């Protein structure tokens, strides 16, 4: 039986000691976000996830969702867990208090997304998609739409979906065919017709209504991405009842089937058929994709948190197994003579996998929480210059967090299987599920290949490289500041070298890419990984500095915690950061060997 304990000590270390998250309470709207409230929320949220969501993770995987003639039933226990979750107010954690939300920082929501994903990624999809629908309406909807839908979504009585993908288009949304015609007799309504596939939470039994956000084309729409509009299409048409909204007639949208799939089996992935379904335009006509992109950062970062959560749960179970499983003796001599063999945690290869999991999860936690905090600053800071600066940093680091954290979440899940040996391959032990569940996060919300293109194609050149400078300048200054500190040199020097190579690679890709875009394309995933490792190094250096500072004083009962941090930092700089060298070399080698083969030669 797998185990899960939310890593609250490490979470609080990052929140308070590295990020000083309580400074957020100085921002207008976040006055309540004191350190002790944030800690209490994380503790209580962890308890809910550990006691209610985690026990449903394996059973949900085994049972999956059921489809019967248009109706979808979630696995046993999901309804009760969903009710506990929504009654606790967790859907509205970071939502606008005007519509019943708690108005807490996005950062706290990020922390909860990590914990929820680790406990039960499938379950997290349902409130996660509601969050997406909430954001779309909150940012782009009319006042009437907000007043109608947002309170219901926040309460969890209605859930949300995002309908982008169609059978012939996922990445290339310019090809969308679903159409929206003005409804003949109703003011402002449209009739939506078309077919969407792979729609998460498209149909299920957890809520009385489902609010679909659908991309479709108006009759006069220009070709391609400039002709796509966003519509809200409720499963049941809302009906006014004594100043509140309830559900009325069934709308013309139905679930055609659900997919049998590799992972997240308790999350319903639906084919959605729209036949003259009534919908209402959200935002301006033909600006649907733009509307989607404004909320993309939060959604992509959310997927990055899924990667981290999967890494964490996989790592925890790998450690538990490695301490328990007795097999062979340590190479340098028996460690536990009273046992028939040593626990496998003594073996270097096993350790390397465990250390990789540890260094990844702790580093990525710091990195993604930092960006989560920047997202809050970008939304709430009174100074527009500060808002812009934070926004640019978030925009730059979003594709990096999405792709790197989901790639590594998968890798660590695979390592957890490897640590388990044959047991890892067996369902009952729980870890093979993490491999299957983690896999999708590399694909949806823009595949990781597309994230890399976003980084080199859009973010790198945007505003003449200003986004890059938002990261490069503070990092350069920090290296400058710390390099004279002898105790930190073992960390600063490798980071400074990797950073220099990253800057070199940046210039190279920018110049070569201008002449031949395939050069930039072929380098993109290597570049993203290099960038991610340097960003992780930036975080690990800060954590190492903090740990040393605390150990220099009297760290008391936390001495072991900080010593462990330092050791893990050492592993990161010695064993993980050097991957930047290899990536640099492959970037240097250019696109030719990738592109020269004719398609027929494959």
């Amino acid at each position, binding site marked *: 039986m797998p185990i899960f304990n939310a890593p609250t000590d490490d979470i609080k270390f990052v929140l308070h000691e590295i990020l000083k998250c309580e400074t957020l309470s100085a921002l207008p709207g976040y006055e*309540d976000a004191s350190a002790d409230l944030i800690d209490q*929320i994380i503790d*209580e949220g962890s308890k809910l996830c550990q006691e*209610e969501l985690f026990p449903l993770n394996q059973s949900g995987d085994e049972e999956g969702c059921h489809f019967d003639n248009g109706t979808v039933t979630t696995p046993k226990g999901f309804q009760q867990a969903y009710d506990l979750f929504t*009654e*606790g107010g967790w859907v*509205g954690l970071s939502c606008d208090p005007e519509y019943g939300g708690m108005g807490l920082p996005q950062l706290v929501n990020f922390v909860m997304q990590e914990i929820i994903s680790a406990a039960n990624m499938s379950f997290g999809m349902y409130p996660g998609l509601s969050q997406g629908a909430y954001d779309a309406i909150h940012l782009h909807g009319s006042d009437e739409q907000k007043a109608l839908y947002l309170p219901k979504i926040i309460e969890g009585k209605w859930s949300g979906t995002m309908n982008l993908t169609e059978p012939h288009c996922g990445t290339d949304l310019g090809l969308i065919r679903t159409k929206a015609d003005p409804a003949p007799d109703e003011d402002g309504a449209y009739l939506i017709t078309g077919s969407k596939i792979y729609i998460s939470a498209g149909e299920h039994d957890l809520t009385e209504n489902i609010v679909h956000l659908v991309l479709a084309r108006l009759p006069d729409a220009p070709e391609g991405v400039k002709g796509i509009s966003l519509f809200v299409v409720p499963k049941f048409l809302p009906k006014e009842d004594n100043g509140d909204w309830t559900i009325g007639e069934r709308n013309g949208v139905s679930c055609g089937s659900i997919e049998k799939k590799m992972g997240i089996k308790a999350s319903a992935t639906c084919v959605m058929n729209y036949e003259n379904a009534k919908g209402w335009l959200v935002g301006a006509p033909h600006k649907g994709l733009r509307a989607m992109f404004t909320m993309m950062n939060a959604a992509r970062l959310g997927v990055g948190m899924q990667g981290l959560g999967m890494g964490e749960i996989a790592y925890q179970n790998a450690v538990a197994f490695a301490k328990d499983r007795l097999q062979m003796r340590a190479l340098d001599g028996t460690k536990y003579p009273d046992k028939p063999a040593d626990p496998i945690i003594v073996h270097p290869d096993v350790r390397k996998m465990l250390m990789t999991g540890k260094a990844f999860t702790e580093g990525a936690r710091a990195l993604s929480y930092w960006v989560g905090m920047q997202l809050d600053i970008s939304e709430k800071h009174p100074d527009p210059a500060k808002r812009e600066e934070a926004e640019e940093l978030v925009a730059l680091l979003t594709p990096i967090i999405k792709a790197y954290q989901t790639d590594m979440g998968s890798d660590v899940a695979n390592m957890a299987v490897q640590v388990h040996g044959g047991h890892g391959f067996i369902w009952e032990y729980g870890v093979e599920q993490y491999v299957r569940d983690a896999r999708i996060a590399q694909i949806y919300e823009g595949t990781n290949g597309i994230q890399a293109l976003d980084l080199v194609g859009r973010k790198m050149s945007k505003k003449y490289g200003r986004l890059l400078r938002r990261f490069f300048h503070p990092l350069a200054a920090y290296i400058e500041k710390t390099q004279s500190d002898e105790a930190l040199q073992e960390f600063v020097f490798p980071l400074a070298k990797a950073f220099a190579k990253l800057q070199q690679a940046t210039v190279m890709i920018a110049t070569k890419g201008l002449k031949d875009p395939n050069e930039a394309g072929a380098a993109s995933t290597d570049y993203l990984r290099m960038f991610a490792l340097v960003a992780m190094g930036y975080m690990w250096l800060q954590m190492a500095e903090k740990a040393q500072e605390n150990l220099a004083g009297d760290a008391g009962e*936390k001495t072991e915690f900080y010593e462990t941090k330092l050791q893990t930092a050492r592993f990161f700089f010695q064993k993980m950061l050097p991957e930047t060298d290899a990536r640099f070399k492959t970037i240097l080698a250019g696109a030719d060997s990738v592109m020269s083969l004719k398609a027929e030669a494959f």
Partner: protein
Amino acid sequence: MKILVPVKRVIDAYVKIRVKLDETGVETQNVKMSMNPFCEIAVEEAIRLKEAGKADEVVAVSAGPDACQETLRTALAIGADKAIHIQTDADLQPLAIAKLLKGVAESENPDLIILGKQAIDGDNNQTGQMLSALLGWPQGTFISSLDIEDDSIVITREIDGGLQTLRLNRPAVLTTDLRLNEPRYPSLPNMMKAKKKPIDTTTPETLGVDVSPRFETLKVSEPPAREAGVKVDSVDALIDKLKNEAKVI
């Protein structure tokens, strides 16, 4: 009606307990702490009475170091109206706690005090009984149901022989058993509201209580590891072992 609910901060129920190397106690450093599960049930019951309109005010109280305020915040988040923290770093034994609670009861004048039947750290199962004796109030221990009538209360107790139903006069001291209710998770809005609720502090000195321990702990050690069992091949062999080896029959 006013209800006083004492709550204790203990090592979290899911943490694996480790005995300190010097055998002076159990490891509490760097260990996750939570509200004693039986106390959670007590808070839950008090809040349910309030929600049912049978109680007007619920006051949570905890004795111990500053960190106890976290436990009180949890009680406030579940729904208590205010909290009292009896600040002390002393090692508190049941009699000392009962005396402190008596002091609080005398100033708060509750109609009912609901405690957990025991705390999962010491498993003493004494504080409620001692408190009732000190106050001279009736006691209903290990309750699995509770009904409030005009000036009395009807409770069901879980006892060895089955269930016992009693009617008690108010004020009274009650202690909760596991089956009384299933405590809720504090909701986000209630956690935020709890921040604005008051926590009063007092001390053993103010309450005039001498909390110095009456017992001295000589040594705390792990229970002996369980030895592997043996299979017996007949009923007679089993009876023989029970009689002569285990000496239980």
